């Protein structure tokens, strides 16, 4: 077992899967010679050749559209969209095509496809290199949306996504790439898509979150522990499908729920999670459900004070949790 960064865990999983399944190909802008702008695919073209790790034209609809065709004709494409912010030209192919092909063909066709994309802010990326786009896709039946919060989960979830028979969006937080480290087993393992994970047991309140916010919530929980507040942390890991059972279980256990995400508040994953709790666990609650999320502005600004004001931080999480604990 090695200690790896979140980025290394993703790279090693890609390497392992490329070795394991010769149907798998990787492509996208700069993924080949350059190894990706974040170096996630560094060294993979040298090892697997230009037929399997491929630099594509700068055209997102073609990246996803050709991946759909390649998947239908027997390959396992794992294309990368260089930044989640640039996924929008491919929405037609993702939502109208990949997501609907199994349904519209009555099960005759399937699209085993994993679209990897770095997302999230706090890295001086401004409006167009900081976005969280998961809620847009989580709305669409036919898609699966996976967002790992630790190096360990990054590996197991990516292997599952590549093995999946349906289109999976796999979002990687840019700020997590090098800041998160953890033990990652060398051997291949699978983490089922749609299964949440309790990252910390607690009794006073539950924080339900995903992605980079998992580690931020952990930092907040450590602070709060010193103040005598015991926090449970549920990492959703997949935002479609949601692990309804795990959500309800933690809500019933602590009676207080804080939902945290960096994506903006309105129409975000927090709305769906809180609706599930309100529908199925209302009478277990000791306080109103609380949401802490990015503000409803079009995207994250560049200038440091503005960026900081946008970001959900461990301090903001601790502050919200304190308020909830006191209710």
């Amino acid at each position, binding site marked *: 077992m090695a200690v790896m960064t979140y980025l290394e865990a993703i790279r090693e999983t890609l390497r392992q899967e490329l070795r394991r399944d010769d149907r798998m190909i990787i492509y996208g802008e700069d993924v080949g010679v350059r190894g990706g702008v974040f170096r996630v695919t560094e060294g993979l073209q040298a090892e697997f050749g230009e037929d399997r790790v491929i630099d594509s034209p700068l055209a997102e609809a*073609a990246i996803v559209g*050709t991946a*759909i065709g390649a998947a239908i004709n027997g390959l396992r494409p794992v294309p990368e969209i260089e930044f989640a912010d640039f996924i929008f030209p491919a929405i037609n192919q993702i939502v109208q095509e990949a997501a609907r092909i199994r*349904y519209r*063909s*009555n*099960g005759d*066709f399937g699209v085993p496809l994993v679209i990897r994309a770095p997302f999230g802010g706090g890295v001086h990326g401004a409006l167009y290199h900081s976005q969280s786009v998961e809620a847009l896709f989580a709305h669409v039946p036919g898609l699966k949306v996976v967002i790992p919060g630790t190096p360990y989960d990054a590996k197991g979830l990516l292997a599952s996504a590549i093995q999946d028979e*349906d289109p999976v969006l796999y979002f990687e937080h840019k700020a997590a790439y090098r800041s998160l480290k953890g033990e990652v087993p060398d051997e291949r393992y699978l983490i089922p898509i749609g299964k949440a994970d309790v990252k910390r047991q607690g009794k006073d309140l539950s924080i339900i979150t995903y992605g980079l916010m998992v580690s931020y919530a952990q930092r907040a929980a450590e602070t709060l522990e010193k103040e005598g507040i015991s926090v449970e942390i549920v990492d959703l890991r997949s935002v479609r499908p949601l692990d309804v059972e795990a959500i309800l279980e933690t809500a019933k256990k602590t009676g207080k729920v804080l939902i945290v995400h960096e994506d903006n508040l309105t129409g975000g994953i927090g709305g769906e999670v809180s609706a599930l709790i309100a529908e199925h666990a209302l009478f277990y609650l000791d306080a109103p459900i609380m949401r802490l999320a990015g503000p409803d502005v079009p995207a994250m600004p560049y200038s440091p004070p503005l960026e900081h004001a946008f970001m959900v931080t461990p301090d903001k999480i601790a502050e919200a949790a304190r308020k909830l604990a006191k209710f």
Partner: protein
Amino acid sequence: MAGSDALYGLGLDASKIETMYYYMVLSRALDERMWILNRQGKSAFVISCQGQEGAQVGVAAALDPTVDWVAPYYRDLGVVLYFGMTPRDVMLGQLAKAADPSSGGRQMPAHYGSRAHHILTGSSPVATQVPQAAGIAWAAKLRRQEGVVMTSLGEGSTNQGEFHEGMNFAAVHRLPLIIVVENNGFAISVPQSKEMAITDVAVRAEGYGMPGVVVRGSDLLAVFEATREARKRALEGKGPTLIEIKTHRFTPHSSDDDDRSYRTPEELKAEKKDDAIHLFRQWMIEQQLWDEQRDRRLRQRVKHEVNDATDFAEAALYPDPSTLLAHVYDD
């Protein structure tokens, strides 16, 4: 424009010629029946192949359904019949029945698809099939499969970004792809002059580094020849070809359209003289490959097939509402 003077050298024998004619006649007859069913209130929607049968059958006949794939668009009845869909299959889709092989009655009629027949499932947003077809061709190339991929679309759809992105991708990777533009002159009501500032869509090919050829859709053999040539290039590893087929739309855009508001009857009447079915029959007779008696027999056979397909589909069951939630995911 390429001519069709040379029959010999095209690899066509009398039987194949008759087969091509049969598929054009069958496409037209099935399509006409769909309109009757629509006007009888039995089918909510029709979108037609009428006027484009020469383009569709000419292209499909130059392909090999055992190894090639097609990613057609919603007018391509002639293509899907040639690739193995039966009249019964088509009518099951037209009447939205459970046994519709394309979608089990989930999609509007004419949104064909069948893995078994190498027909990619299609959608209503136009040109999405172009990058997908390039992807199928790409996988074929990487996996060293035999065969080529043909994708088709209307000229209006060539204004979509996905057409251009798909063309570019196919050219960069020298993919075994044939892009067929069935130019019927209209995007619903908008004439070509308001869709683009060029006369021939085929010139767009040059910008991507692939050949673009123009043929007349009423000239079945010219269409066949151009497609055969494109297929040969593709199999030789020379990459994609764009074929623009000048054709006509003899019907309104769909059963929900009324083309009298944007086309004159005279214009339509003149176009109907340039009908591949009529012209090919004449040519067959001139070549002494065909006669009136055989024509009557063939039309009787087609009428019987269309009646059978209609009766079969009308008697077939609708999908059970309990299947609404099926096939969202693999599990």
